[in-house]
C-alpha cells in the first residue's frame, strides 16, 4: 500500500508543479481593453449600432473617467465613432460641463489619433476650440506636436501671441526639444505661412543635437537670402526685410546657445575665439546666462577669459537668471537673487554694477528684509555701489510697500540713504508717498525733509532734458 501512496502523492505534486509553472511562464494574453462604461463589447466598433441616447449620457461623463479607460477605449474605437462622440459633446448645453468633457476627450484623442484631433478641433466653434486647443497643447506627446502646431497655425497670430508670449513659438520649441528634424520639415513645408520667425526655435534645438548640420542649414538659408543691412537714421523699410533680419539675428544667437548645450567646452572656445564678430557678440548675453545655469564656476572662468570690454555684457546675462521665486535656502538655489548677487561680487564693481539692478529688483520682490540685511553687511565701497543701483522707481500702487520694505533695514545709515533714494524716485507717486510718510513712524521733521526730496514730475523731465539722458 505504501508504494501506491508514494506514487499517488508524487504524481499529484508533479501535476501541480507543472501546472503552476505553466501558469507562471506562459505569456499572458493582451489585457482586455476597457471600454467606456455601458458600451457593449460587441457593439463598440460600430457607431451606427450604438444607441445615441445611451452613448450621449456616457460620453458626456468622459471627464470623470480615468485616462487609462478613455485611452484604451479610444484605441479600439473607429474614427467615425470618435467623430460622433465629439459631435455629442458639442451638444452638451451647459458650458462648463461641455468644456470639461471636450478637454478630456481631446486629451485622450491627441494620443490616439492626432490627425483626427486636429480635424475635429477645426470644426468646433470659437469658444470650444480654445478649450480643445489648450487640452492638446497641455498633454500632447512629442509625436503629436505637429497636430498642435497645425491647429495653432489656423489662428490669427495676434490671438495666440503678444510682445511677451507666443503660444506657437512655445509649442514649436517643445517639439524641437525632442525632434528638431521633424520640426525642420514642418517649417520648410510651410514657408508661405509666416513661420520664418520660428527658425530660432529650430536652430537652437537642432544645434543642441547636431550643431554642424544646423549651422549648414542656417548658413545656406542666409546665403540664399542675405538680410539687408539695417537702415540708419530711422529710414523706413519693408516689414518683411526687417522681420527677416530679426529672424537671422535670432538664428545666429540661437545656434550658439544650442552649441553650448551640445558641447559646452567647444562652445566656450568658439565664443572666445569669435566674440569680436557681431553674431557671436550678440549671443554673448544669453550664452553667459545659459552657461551660468549649467555651472556657475564654469561661467566665472569663462568670463575671466573674455576681453575686459565684453565682461559686463556677459554678467548681464547672468543677472537675468536671478529669479525672485527661487529662495536663498532652496535645495537648488543657484538662481536665487542672493546666490547670483554674491556670485557677481566675485568680479570688480565696474564689471557688475551696471547689471546688478535686476538682481536687486528680484530680491527686493522676493524678500526685501533679507536683501537689506545683506546690504548692511557689505563693505562700505561695495555697499555704495549696490545702493547706487538699488531699484527705487515708485508707482502709486507700490508706494506703501516700497517704503515699508526699506523701513525693514536694521542699519539706520543704510535705511536713511535708501529712503532718500526712494523719495527721489517717487515723482510719479508724489501724493501717495507723501501720504505714506505722513502715516509713518518717522518724526515729523524727518517726514518733511524726505517729502521735500520728492521731485515734481516736471522737474524730472527738465533734468532729463538738461542732461540729455532719457
Amino acid at each position, binding site marked *: 500500500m505504501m508504494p501506491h501512496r508514494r506514487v499517488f502523492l508524487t504524481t499529484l505534486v508533479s501535476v501541480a508543479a507543472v501546472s503552476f509553472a505553466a501558469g507562471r511562464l506562459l505569456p499572458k494574453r493582451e489585457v482586455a481593453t476597457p471600454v467606456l462604461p455601458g458600451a457593449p463589447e460587441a457593439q463598440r466598433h460600430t457607431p451606427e449600432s450604438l444607441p445615441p441616447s445611451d452613448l450621449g449620457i456616457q460620453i458626456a461623463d468622459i*471627464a470623470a473617467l480615468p485616462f487609462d479607460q478613455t485611452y484604451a477605449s479610444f484605441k479600439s474605437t473607429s474614427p467615425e465613432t470618435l467623430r460622433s462622440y465629439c459631435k455629442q459633446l458639442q451638444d452638451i448645453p451647459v458650458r462648463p460641463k461641455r468644456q470639461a468633457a471636450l478637454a478630456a476627450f481631446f486629451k485622450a484623442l491627441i494620443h490616439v489619433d492626432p490627425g483626427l484631433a486636429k480635424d475635429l478641433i477645426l470644426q468646433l466653434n470659437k469658444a470650444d476650440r480654445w478649450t480643445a486647443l489648450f487640452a492638446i497643447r497641455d498633454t500632447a506627446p512629442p509625436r503629436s506636436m505637429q497636430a498642435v502646431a497645425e491647429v495653432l497655425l489656423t489662428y490669427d497670430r495676434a490671438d495666440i501671441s503678444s510682445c511677451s508670449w507666443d503660444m506657437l513659438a512655445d509649442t514649436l520649441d517643445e517639439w524641437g526639444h525632442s525632434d528638431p528634424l521633424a520640426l525642420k520639415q514642418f517649417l520648410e513645408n510651410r514657408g508661405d505661412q509666416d513661420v520664418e520667425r520660428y527658425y530660432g526655435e529650430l536652430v537652437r534645438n537642432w544645434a543642441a*543635437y547636431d550643431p554642424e548640420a544646423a549651422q549648414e542649414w542656417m548658413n545656406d538659408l542666409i546665403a540664399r537670402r542675405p538680410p539687408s543691412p539695417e537702415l540708419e537714421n530711422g529710414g523706413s523699410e519693408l516689414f518683411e526685410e526687417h522681420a527677416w533680419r530679426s529672424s537671422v539675428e535670432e538664428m545666429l544667437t540661437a545656434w550658439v546657445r544650442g552649441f553650448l548645450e551640445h558641447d559646452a567646452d567647444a562652445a566656450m572656445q568658439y565664443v572666445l575665439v569669435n566674440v569680436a564678430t557681431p553674431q557671436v557678440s550678440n549671443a554673448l548675453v544669453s550664452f553667459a546666462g545659459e552657461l551660468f545655469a549649467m555651472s556657475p564656476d564654469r561661467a566665472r572662468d569663462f568670463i575671466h577669459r573674455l576681453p575686459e570690454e565684453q565682461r559686463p555684457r556677459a554678467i548681464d546675462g547672468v543677472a537675468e537668471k536671478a*529669479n525672485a521665486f527661487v529662495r536663498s535656502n532652496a535645495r537648488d538655489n543657484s538662481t536665487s537673487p542672493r546666490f547670483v548677487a554674491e556670485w557677481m561680487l566675485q568680479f570688480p564693481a565696474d564689471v557688475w554694477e551696471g547689471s546688478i539692478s535686476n538682481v536687486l529688483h528680484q530680491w527686493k520682490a522676493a524678500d526685501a528684509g533679507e536683501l537689506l540685511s545683506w546690504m548692511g553687511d557689505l563693505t562700505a565701497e561695495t555697499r555704495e555701489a549696490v545702493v547706487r543701483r538699488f531699484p527705487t522707481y515708485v508707482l502709486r500702487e507700490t508706494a506703501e510697500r516700497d517704503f515699508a520694505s526699506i523701513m525693514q533695514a536694521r542699519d539706520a545709515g543704510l535705511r536713511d540713504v535708501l529712503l532718500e533714494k526712494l523719495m527721489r524716485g517717487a515723482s510719479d507717486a508724489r501724493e501717495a508717498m507723501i501720504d505714506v510718510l505722513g502715516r509713518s513712524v518717522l518724526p515729523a521733521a524727518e517726514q518733511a525733509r524726505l517729502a521735500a526730496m520728492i521731485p515734481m514730475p516736471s522737474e524730472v523731465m527738465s533734468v532729463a532734458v538738461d542732461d540729455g539722458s532719457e
Partner: protein
Amino acid sequence: MWLVLAAACFLVAPLAFAIGRIGAPRPPDRSIEHALRSSEVRAPETRGAAAGPDDFANIRIENLCDVGFDQAYQLLRSAPREALTTWSRRLEALPAGARRTAAVKTFFKTLAQIDARTAVDLALALDRHDPRWAAIGSVSNAVPVAELPEVARMFTALNEKVSVNDLIGTWSRSDPAAAAEFLAAYPGDVENEDVASLMMNWAALDPAAAANWLAHAEPKRRVPETYASFYAGWVEHDRAAAFADLAARAGDETFLKAIETVAQNLFTESPDAARAFILALPAGAGRRAAAGQITGYFSRVYLGSDPLKLKADEVSKWLLTLPDDVWHEEIGQVISRWRRDDGAAVEAWLAQTPFAVRDRVLASYCRAFDWDEPSTGFGAGFAISDPHLRRETFRRIFADMTEEAREALLEKIELSPAHAREITSVLERL
C-alpha cells in the same frame, strides 16, 4: 485508486495553473525596451543589452521622448514605483538643455495621466530648479480632471507664489465646490481673477451655491470683477432670473461691470439676446453701460488682437433698435469706424434712417469727426435738419477746445460761405 488519482490531478492542475498565473510578474513591453535602447539620438556607448525584462534599471529612460506614446505609456504603467523614482532622478541629473527638458516633460506628462499621485510626489521630490518646475508644469497640465485634487495637493505643498488660475478654471468646470474649498484653504496668493474663474463656472452649474459662497467670502472678493463673472455664468444657467436680478441692481455701481460683461457676452452670441438684456434693464446708467461696452470697441484703442472682431455696420444698425438715450452719445464713433471701411454704405444707410432719429444719429456722427479728415463729420452736422440741434452739436464740439485747436480744426474743413457763417455764429456765442 488510479481513478481517484486522475480525479485529484484534474482538480489540482487548473488550481495550480491559476495560482502560478496570478502571481506571475508583468514584463515590460520588449518593443519599448528595444526602442529605448536603440535610439539613434543617443551615443553608441549608451546602448547595451539588458539583463532581462525585469531589469527596469537598464531602460534608457533618457530616450523616452523618442518612442511613441503608447510605448512610453505601457512602460511607465508597468514600472514599479522604485523604478519611476530612479528614472525621475536620472532625468533630473541630465545636463541642462533641450534633451533634459524634453525627457522630463514627456516623463511627467505621461506619468501624470497614469498615476497622478506618484507623478506629484516625484515632481515635488526633484531638487534642481528647472527640471522641478518643468515637471510641476507638466503634471499640472496633463493630470486628468478626476485627479485634479492631486494638483491642488502639489500647489499646497509647494508653498510658493504659484498662480492657481488654470487649476481653478479647469477644476470648477466639473467640481466647483471642491475648487472653492481648495481656494478657501490655499495658503498662497489667491487673486480675485481666480475667484472670478470659479464664479463663472459655478454660477453656470449651480448659481444658488455660487451666490451663497460669494456672500460668505471675504469682503475683498465681492468686487465688480467677481460679480461680473458670477452673472456671466448665471446667465448661462437661467437667463431670465439673471436678467431680473441684475436689473434690480442696475443702480449700484458695483454691478456695472457685470452688466457690461453680460451685454458683451450676449452680443457675441446674438445681438437680439443683447437687446433683450438691455431692454430688461431700467433706463439709465445700466443701459448705457451695456451698450457702451459694445460701442467701446470702436472708440477705445486695443493693443494686440481684437477679441470680438465686431463689425461696425452691424453694431450701428443694432444700436438703432434700442431706445435713443442708450445710443445717441455713442453711435457716432461706430459710424465713423464704419465709414473708414465703406463710406458709400454709410451714406446709403444714413439716407434711409427714419426721419425721427436721423438728426440725432447725424449729431453723434458729427461729434465723432475724424481729426485727420473732419469735413465728413462736419458734413453730417450740416445735414442735421433741426437748426437748434445743429448749433448745439457744433457748440459742444468747440466748447472744450483751446483757441489754437479751433483754428487748426477750421483750417482743415472745407466750408461753404453759408456754413462758414453758421460756424462763426456758433463760435461767437461760446
